[in-house]
């Protein structure tokens, strides 16, 4: 099982990242997720993070996924800095033999990334800038995975 985490300002190449997962031995299924800046009322978004803790928190989430499902590989890329509507924010890709594990692990990783990884979003709108508030629905989503 190979796990990999990148925090970067640069964009990522979804095709290349997916090819890095589909090309691995024993892989029959790759589930992936791409998060995008939604344009509704938002002119731009700045993502701040806690260097060091972010990588550690994401690696721990991937290790938990690896313990829970039979996976071949999992990859997370999260961008930081200022992003415009339509730009990629996050990529999560999971490779496994069968689709069920890949789907479940991919959704698990996103749910925990949303509630455990130290990123903060500040939105610029026509009314000024504001820090995005955490959503209770994200806590509820993560709580679904309790054993």
């Amino acid at each position, binding site marked *: 099982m190979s796990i990999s985490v990148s925090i970067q300002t640069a964009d990522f190449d979804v095709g290349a990242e997916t090819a890095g997962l589909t090309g691995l031995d024993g892989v029959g299924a790759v589930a992936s997720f791409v*998060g995008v800046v939604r344009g509704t009322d938002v002119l731009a978004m700045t*993502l*701040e*993070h*806690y260097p*060091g*803790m972010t990588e*550690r*928190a994401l690696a721990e989430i991937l290790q938990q996924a690896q313990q829970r499902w039979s996976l071949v590989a999992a990859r997370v890329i*999260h961008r930081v800095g200022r992003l415009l509507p339509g730009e990629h*924010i*996050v990529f999560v890709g999971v490779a496994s033999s069968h689709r069920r594990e890949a789907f479940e692990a991919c959704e698990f990783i*996103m749910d925990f*990334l*949303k*509630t*455990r*990884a*130290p*990123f*903060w*979003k*500040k939105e610029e709108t026509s009314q000024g800038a504001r*820090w*995005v*508030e*955490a959503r209770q629905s994200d806590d509820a989503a993560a709580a679904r995975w309790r054993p």
Partner: protein
Amino acid sequence: MSITILYFANLRETLGIERETVELPITVQTIGDLREWLCARGGNWNVLAGAQVRAALNQVLTMPDASIGADDEVAFFPPVTGG
């Protein structure tokens, strides 16, 4: 003992500081003690008393009763909103 404290997001902005190294008085033993001690600075510092404020000790989420040691890294931040 000396520790490093980091502040993120709205806390960083409100406090106007992102990192400091402080020498703790002997009475500050836990994350909860540290928070009270920082709030006692007055002015904007009571933002740290907010129920939503989270703390990490050496880059792992922690609770108010966790003990602080020399050279530890403590961080304060609001609930996370990545993804």
